[in-house]
């Protein structure tokens, strides 16, 4: 999907007369005008919080294979050269080396390692510098500019990471964090964001007055030397929008809330910083017992963290496991400001939302089920989506209500729509999936916010994998059966069964990921699981992991989710 943005100048810190500074955010001229101009009451706290949002937007924990092209070319050249040299020089050199074998100094290894470390440090520093300076590379790092929304009670900034797995939303209470706004226009827009702006955030100090200004007026900016008019067509990566929207829709579902103390979050982050899981399972496990302090266990070390000072007051549940725990490191900068952290859990392998409470601010970190947010693992979330389509009349009704009031609680919206809770939840889920509604978890309200200039439909999100769609159909038709299930060595789960008339064998690892599979279908015969597992393997995996949807109506679906999330 292509997104058109146009900015008047760059976002940045503008000095005014009298030493006051204004943090001017250039707004997208292609969208509705949004204005905000107020002084920052707690600039240091705002600085730290917005810098944490920066960590979210640049986080990319996907596996990056090493680029071996130069090495291969060098190897080929070297091989041909060596062949030449070896034939004539081998004997002579061998003798020479044996006769004059130099004594290796004892500190040679140490010096070599130190120099090599220095080399790689400088090289990665150089790569990072290139990444910061080169606009095209920056666009790879940050596919889409952040979105800012000015609402009646709050201002919030949203971003989604390049690896399509982390979502960040910094919500700031207008009354507590800002002075009075001289110009105010409610709405949502993109703001120009760059590494230079992040550097400007670092200059916020309490002894200098700083204003936050969302500048919608290109003309005014020009007259004050705001900069040139820039237009850019952003080609969003495949799957980026789908990942973002799926996470948004997941946010609207009923979830189980666990409150962690700051000390527990610090210990988890400190452990993750110092340890790297080299083998599965790599999950973060929540062990929750009513009336007890919540416990978080990090696999594979089985390191247990108890959140002292908080209690879990929900219903008993089996341990919930989530993956991609290293993404939580984005919260590291918030620790000094954090009061507590609410974790909203949908279930094992499902997205989770970490809401760091910081007085007048809160940062929501949304994590997809896996760091690699590919379609085969995304199927887990599909099982939680409402059955059937939402009627256009109901969608229009909810849209009108939310547009008018801008923020409504679930009960208020349901009362206004005059429908049952299941239909209301399904409608909100659909609106979130199209990028029009955000669920403010901490405030418990649904806000009207159009993340894109237009409602996002299936055409923009991109079509789903045909194998995934077919697997869902097989599950719905109940054409799947597990014949046997064996736990093999290294906790491997060997599942044998039938799916849509095909005989299927499946090996799942401790994280539930497909390691190997056998199927008779043509898709599998052509390329095995290299091109993604076939529909039969996916259906059997969903069955084995208990992800098969069984709801017949939205009410049944909503009640099932409520039971799962009962606090």
């Amino acid at each position, binding site marked *: 999907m292509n997104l058109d943005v146009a900015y008047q100048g760059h976002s940045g810190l503008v000095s005014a007369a009298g030493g006051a500074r204004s943090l001017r955010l250039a707004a997208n001229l292609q969208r509705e005008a949004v204005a905000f101009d107020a002084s920052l009451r707690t600039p*240091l706290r705002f*600085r*730290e919080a917005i*810098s944490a949002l920066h960590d979210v937007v640049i986080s990319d924990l996907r596996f990056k294979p090493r680029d071996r092209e130069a090495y291969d070319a060098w190897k080929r050249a070297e091989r*041909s050269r060596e*062949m*030449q040299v070896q*034939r*004539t020089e081998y004997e002579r050199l061998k003798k020479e080396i044996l006769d004059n074998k130099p004594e290796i100094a004892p500190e040679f290894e140490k010096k070599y390692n130190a120099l090599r470390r220095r080399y790689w440090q400088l090289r990665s520093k150089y790569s990072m510098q290139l990444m910061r300076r080169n606009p095209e590379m920056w666009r790879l790092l940050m596919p889409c500019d952040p979105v800012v929304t000015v609402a009646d009670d709050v201002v919030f900034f949203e971003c989604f990471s390049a690896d399509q797995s982390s979502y960040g939303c910094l919500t700031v209470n207008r009354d507590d964090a800002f002075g009075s706004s001289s110009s105010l226009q409610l709405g949502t827009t993109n703001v120009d964001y760059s590494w230079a702006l992040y*550097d400007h955030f*670092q*200059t916020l*100090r*309490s*002894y200098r007055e700083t204003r936050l200004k969302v500048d919608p007026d290109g003309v005014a900016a020009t007259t004050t030397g705001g900069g040139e008019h820039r237009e850019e067509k952003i080609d969003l990566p495949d799957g980026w929008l789908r990942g973002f929207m799926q996470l948004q829709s997941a946010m609207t579902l009923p979830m189980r809330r666990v409150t962690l*103390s*700051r*000390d*527990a979050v*610090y*210990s*988890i*982050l*400190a*452990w993750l*910083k110092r340890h790297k899981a080299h083998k599965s399972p790599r999950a973060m496990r929540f062990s929750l017992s009513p009336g007890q302090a919540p416990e978080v266990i990090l696999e594979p070390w089985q*390191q247990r*963290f108890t959140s*002292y*000072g908080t209690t879990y007051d929900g219903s008993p549940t089996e341990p919930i496991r989530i993956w991609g725990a290293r993404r939580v*490191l984005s919260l*590291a900068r918030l*620790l*000094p400001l954090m009061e507590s952290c609410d974790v909203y859990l949908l279930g094992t392998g499902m997205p989770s939302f970490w809401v760091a409470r910081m007085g007048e601010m809160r940062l929501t970190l949304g994590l997809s089920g896996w760091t690699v947010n590919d379609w085969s693992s995304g199927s887990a979330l599909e099982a939680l989506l409402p059955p059937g389509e939402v009627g256009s009349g109901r969608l229009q009704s909810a849209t009108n209500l939310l547009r008018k009031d801008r923020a409504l609680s679930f009960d208020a919206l349901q009362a206004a729509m005059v429908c049952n809770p299941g239909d209301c939840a399904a409608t909100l889920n659909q609106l979130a999936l199209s990028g029009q509604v955000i669920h403010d978890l901490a405030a418990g309200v649904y806000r009207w916010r159009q993340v894109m200039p237009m409602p996002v439909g299936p055409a923009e999100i991109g079509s789903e994998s045909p194998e995934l769609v077919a697997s869902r159909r097989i599950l719905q038709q109940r054409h799947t059966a597990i014949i046997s299930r064996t736990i093999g060595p290294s906790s491997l789960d060997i599942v044998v069964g039938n799916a849509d008339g095909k005989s299927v064998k499946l090996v799942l690892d401790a994280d539930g990921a497909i390691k190997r599979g056998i199927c008779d279908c043509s898709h599998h015969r052509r390329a095995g699981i290299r091109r993604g597992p076939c529909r039969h393997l996916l259906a059997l995996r969903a069955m084995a992991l208990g992800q098969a949807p069984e709801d017949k109506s939205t009410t049944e679906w909503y009640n099932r989710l409520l039971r799962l999330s009962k606090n």
Partner: protein
Amino acid sequence: MAKDAPAHDLLLAEEYYSAEDSRFIPALRKVTDSNRLAQFADRWKHDQRIWSRTQKVEYLRGEPNCVGHQPVVKRLFKQAEEDSDHTVVAACAALFDRLVRHVKRTRYRYHWPSRTSWTEDYLATTSPKLPYGSRPRKARNPFTGEPIDVPPPPAPKDAIYFSYRTRYYLQRRAWRYFRRLAFRAPQQYVDAAVLLLREYRDADFERGERILDCWTLLQLAFREHPALRFGRERIRLAEGGSLGQLTAAPRFRKLWQTTAAFDQLIELMDNAPSRLVRVWAMQLLAQDHSERIASLPAAKLLALLTSEDEDLWQFAARCLKDNPHLHNIPLEAWLELIDQAPPTALPAVCEVIESNLSAERLSLQQCVELALREPTSIAQLGLRWSRSKSIQSEDDYELVARLADVRCVAIAEEAADWALGLVGSRAEYDRDHVSRFFDSLSPGVRRRTWAWLECDECPGADDPVLFCRLLETPFDDLRLRVVDLLERRNLPGEARPGLVPVWTSVLLGVHRGGRQKLKATRQLADELIRHPERANDLLPVLAAAVRSVRQPEARAGVAAIVSSLTTNPQLAGAVARNLPELEIIPAEAPA
């Protein structure tokens, strides 16, 4: 020849030809009927229209991969020879050089008498087949009925662009044209040769050995060089010679030494598409026109300095060293040069500027702005010039303080040292200026500013306002240094309340600061003992240390709590509130 080409292709090309349509060449290249093409070429070669001549050159510059087009090439070439059309002959000569292609291959040799083996490189001819025929046809085996692929028929003889014998002949004949021109009309030779030299592209010399295939080029530009041995058809390297030794050694050198040739060489050096030709022109200029180069206008050489071509700006930098007119260049031109020069040329540009421009001609503001640039050579120049200035007024100090925003890593520490020596001196100390250095985005600047703070005579060492500002820093390196500093000395009293956020940040930092965390815990305990009324602020931070998964932190935290409780037993309530899971067991009295 491919007989299955549609007959209307040539009709279309002829229509475009008569209408002077730009689609003519693409349409012509699709025609494969050599007989009809020959008839058409007979008409085209006599066409004297300017458009037609341009089309001939464009056609000859195209990739030689059209089936059946040999008659067109031959006819155009021969007619151009007859008409003395240097432009078309030059295009033909370059095409013929492109047709000869040798690649380096390695072969294995064995000498039976001595029973030794070795490998050696040799140049083998390549003659890629022209696109001919269609894809393998699908058919069925008449006996088994199985589907099979029927291979396409073998390519006919005209599926290559001339045989190698013809190619060598065409190369020799093209060079003969230029050779005879040098004798018959020497005043035209250089112009014609320049036309030829401009026909070569860098892609023609993608591998070094391809240079040896360019008969006409080597005859023209390197005929007298001892590293080359010119045979009847091929050119080889002389014994001990290598392509790396090649320097300009043209045939008819005297013709290249005239004033007109000098202008042509300058033009060639500036605009020739091939690097080999540009370097050749520079070498020839240096060999035969050194006096004329010295009298070139400085503005022309300065313009060359902004070229993206490394050879060109290196040549310009060499020439500028002895140029007598450089002192008359206005200041704005020099500064413009810095903006326009490519990054790789900046060291040379800065060297030229420094040797020809006095720092007195620049204001302090201009010098500082240069020092704030990112490229090292410019920043170093700006800093050197800034240091040569006399700093007197308040505005001057304000400008010097701007060096806190230095972006060049290489000069960051040096710039900070110099600037702090001025704005941080006891006589001129200004906390507004100095705090800019603490807030710098450059770690080098912050490091040197901290060193300034720790020196004996530092005027800011006891400035509470400076420390209050310092404690608001978002940078971990400064926070850790503050914790280290507190081990040695205390901060001014007014700054101490700002320490809690620093201790919190250090203790809850997950990225670094293992040693400082223990110090911060001790300092927190001391503060708690000194100010028990601040327990509500300090104990939550200590609680994080006590509950830390890292054992050294947890031990230090427990020790801090216990020592605080021992000194101030009234803290027990606050400790119980913040650490309910901590059970304090009073020490048993000794028996």
